[in-house]
């Protein structure tokens, strides 16, 4: 058993060892790469280039590589791209700035792979830079053979130029140009922009012309439609007005008939009213007026008669009254004159008597006026506030007696007292002249003044 286990382990180890060795010596080419094998015995299988090549090219299959005797390198056959950015001059001498991209790869045939392997095998990372420099120069020459218009429009011409100028050099390098694309052309002189302007202007003009034309057609159509509409509207309105006029005319005629009838009715009504008023108001009013006129005339005549009678009566009455007044006045005047004469005689007689016995008259007058005199004497004491009578009642009597005797003795004093009491009464000394007699003429004048209103 231990022998079999050791054998199994040895077998496993041997298998592992074999796998490791196989991995070390067996190489497989991926579809996008080529194996470049150089070294011992690596020249026998290439049909085309066997004589000159010192290495073997394998694509698409596996191959054994003897470690230590052979080396195996891989060359990528992938597509590569290189950006181009060059300033160049076209065939017409116009300076342009071109940006483009070139897409290339290593050729699939052994010749191309061999050429490329000999040039780039250690510098595959630098292939883009070299290609860029190469193609920059080629692009300058390509664009120098073309015009701007060709650059823009003539793709066939461009690819043709690319092939013509680069075929040999790319063959030397073992590269194949799949595509060259110009991405952008910058034109400092405005040439490209000006190229497009005539066409743009023409297109714009055509667009404007077409737009204007269509607008015009649309406007014409609109206006025509509007005209037709307006015509229709006008006709309709004319018809409407016509019919309306007829309707109005008929209505007016009917109205006229009605008005005629109404007028006739109103006339008849007015006539009727007039007749009625005439019979109800005018005739009675005439009768009343006649009545009143007649009554007024009668009244006037009556009043005239009354007035005449009253005037006659008044006249007669006044005459009578005047007569009576005149008679009364004459009688009164006569009486007054006789009375005045009698008074004058009395005064004259009195004056005579005074002239003869003045003292008696005075005494008489004193006797008549005694109480007033005594009163005046008392007033003398009235002016004294406090009278002191020295010898009693006898004293008072004495003093009064003296005062009275004083009055009795002094006639002059008495006269003055009298004159003071009588006021305007003339002094007795002047009583001898009689008062002025009232003339008969004045009495008559008074009588006339009294009777005057009645006369008139």
């Amino acid at each position, binding site marked *: 058993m231990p022998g079999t286990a050791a054998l199994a382990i040895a077998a496993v180890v041997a298998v592992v060892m074999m796998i490791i060795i196989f991995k070390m010596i067996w190489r497989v080419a991926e579809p996008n790469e080529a194996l470049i094998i150089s070294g011992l015995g690596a020249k026998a299988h290439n049909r*085309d280039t066997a004589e000159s090549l010192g290495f073997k090219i394998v694509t698409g299959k596996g191959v054994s590589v003897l470690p230590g005797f052979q080396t195996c390198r891989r060359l990528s056959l992938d597509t590569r791209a290189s950006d181009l950015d060059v300033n160049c001059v076209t065939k017409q001498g116009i300076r342009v700035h071109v940006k483009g991209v070139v897409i290339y790869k290593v*050729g*699939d*045939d052994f*010749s*191309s792979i061999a*050429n490329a392997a000999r040039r780039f095998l250690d510098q595959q990372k630098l292939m883009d830079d070299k290609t860029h420099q190469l193609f920059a120069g080629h692009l300058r020459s390509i664009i120098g053979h073309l015009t701007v218009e060709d650059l823009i429009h003539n793709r*066939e011409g461009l*690819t*043709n130029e690319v*092939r*013509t100028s680069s*075929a040999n050099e*790319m*063959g030397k390098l*073992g590269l*194949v140009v*799949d595509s060259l694309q110009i991405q952008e052309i910058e034109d400092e002189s405005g040439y490209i922009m000006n190229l497009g302007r005539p066409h743009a202007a023409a297109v714009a003009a055509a667009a404007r012309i077409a737009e204007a034309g269509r607008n015009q057609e649309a406007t014409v159509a609109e206006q025509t439609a509007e005209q037709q509409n307006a015509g229709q509207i006008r006709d309709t309105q004319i018809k409407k007005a016509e019919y309306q006029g007829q309707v109005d005319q008929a209505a007016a005629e009917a109205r006229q008939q009605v008005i005629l009838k109404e007028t006739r009715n109103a006339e008849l009504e007015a006539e009727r009213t007039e007749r009625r008023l005439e019979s109800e108001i005018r005739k009675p009013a005439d009768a009343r007026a006649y009545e009143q006129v007649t009554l007024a005339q009668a009244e006037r005549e009556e009043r005239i008669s009354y007035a005449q009678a009253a005037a006659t009566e008044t006249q007669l009455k006044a005459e009578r009254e005047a007569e009576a007044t005149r008679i009364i006045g004459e009688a009164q005047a006569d009486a007054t004159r006789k009375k005045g004469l009698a008074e004058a005689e009395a005064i004259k007689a009195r004056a005579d008597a005074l002239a003869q016995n003045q003292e008696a008259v005075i005494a008489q007058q004193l006797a008549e006026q005694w109480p007033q005199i005594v009163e005046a004497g008392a007033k003398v004491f009235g002016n004294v506030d406090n009278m002191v009578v020295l010898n009693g009642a006898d004293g008072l009597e004495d003093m009064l007696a003296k005062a009275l005797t004083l009055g009795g003795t002094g006639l002059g004093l008495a006269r003055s007292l009298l004159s003071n009491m009588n006021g305007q009464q003339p002094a007795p000394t002047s009583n001898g002249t009689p008062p002025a007699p009232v003339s008969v003429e004045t009495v008559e004048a008074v009588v006339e003044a009294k009777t005057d209103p009645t006369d008139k």
Partner: protein
Amino acid sequence: MVGRQGRVTGKIGPGLVGEVMISIRGGVEAFYAHAVDPRDEIPVGSMVVVVEYSPPRTVYVAPTSI
């Protein structure tokens, strides 16, 4: 390679380097093409036959009569 048919994708003519697409190695590859008779002009789209192969990428073609 010689005797294969191809399709012209770049005009072949005097002073021009044309291009033909030829089916080879399971794929289609583009080769630079010249006419066998230098005066021929072969337009794009014509079918040609490879008369001669010049490695690495150049063929000389003649238009097929078909």
